[in-house]
């Protein structure tokens, strides 16, 4: 398959994506490529339909996730965000990450853990949104601006991980 994920879904290559349009197109594409439709087809067509369905699924998972979508857009620009190798980032950001993780550890000691979690989540989501809008403004640029966009994607990764931990924590807290 030659076209990129955005073309596949008939969407403009942009960081801003309508999730509703995306999921509608996904359902349309799924119907077209579903391997069941090729039950009577020959082996080659069957194999192709399975491949195609998998690709459509990958594309959907990538485009619907704000972090994966950002990494994919950089990839389309020929940039590898180097998640594995880049360990030294701006200290203030990392300190904030550590403080948030510490705050999450301490939440159960608060008089009102639910309110404390809500406050924490508000701050974290705000930071995520600011990374996302910063990325949307910069990913098509070059030079320093593009570097800044890469940096924002790495920050999104940290924050995304933290939000997952927050979700797990919340589930555990309100389970009992």
């Amino acid at each position: 398959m030659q076209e990129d994920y955005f073309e596949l879904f008939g969407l403009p290559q942009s960081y801003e994506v309508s999730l509703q349009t995306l999921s509608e197109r996904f359902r349309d594409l799924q119907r077209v490529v579903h391997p069941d439709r090729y039950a009577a087809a020959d082996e080659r067509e069957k194999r192709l339909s399975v491949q195609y369905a998998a690709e459509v699924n990958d594309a959907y998972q990538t485009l619907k996730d704000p972090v994966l979508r950002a990494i994919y857009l950089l990839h389309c620009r020929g940039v590898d965000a180097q998640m594995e190798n880049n360990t030294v980032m701006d200290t203030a950001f990392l300190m904030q990450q550590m403080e948030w993780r510490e705050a999450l550890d301490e939440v159960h000691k608060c008089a009102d853990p639910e309110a404390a979690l809500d406050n924490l989540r508000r701050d974290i989501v705000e930071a995520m949104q600011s990374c996302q809008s910063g990325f949307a403004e910069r990913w098509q640029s070059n030079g320093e601006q593009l570097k800044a966009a890469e940096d924002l994607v790495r920050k999104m990764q940290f924050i995304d991980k933290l939000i997952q931990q927050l979700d797990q924590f919340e589930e555990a807290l309100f389970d009992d």
Partner: protein
Amino acid sequence: MAYSDKVLDHYDNPRNVGKLDADDPDVGTGMVGAPACGDVMRLQIKVDSQGIIEDARFKTYGCGSAIASSSLVTEWMKGKTLDEAEQIKNTAIAEELALPPVKIHCSVLAEDAIKAAVSDYRGKHGEKS
């Protein structure tokens, strides 16, 4: 994935967890993070008048291998000069802890944290690193 006994030992009994005063001129602080897994590591050293690392502390949010790597290097750094500490390589950390290939980046994180802490200390003392 199975952790080695050494990783589990450091994970269950982390050495030198804690915090030193980052504003103390004798303290160097290194903050590093791995975007791929969201790990964050803070490594601090306290250096005596002879230029020897007399104390090292860490705090790591991450997987067992990342915690074990940072715990191990705090042990290794104590009693070393800054130059000696900088010679600690991620390969030595990975070997000591028997880290599998997918966890090598945790040892890289610890090596980078050492460099960042030493460089912070040197910066405070007007040395170029």
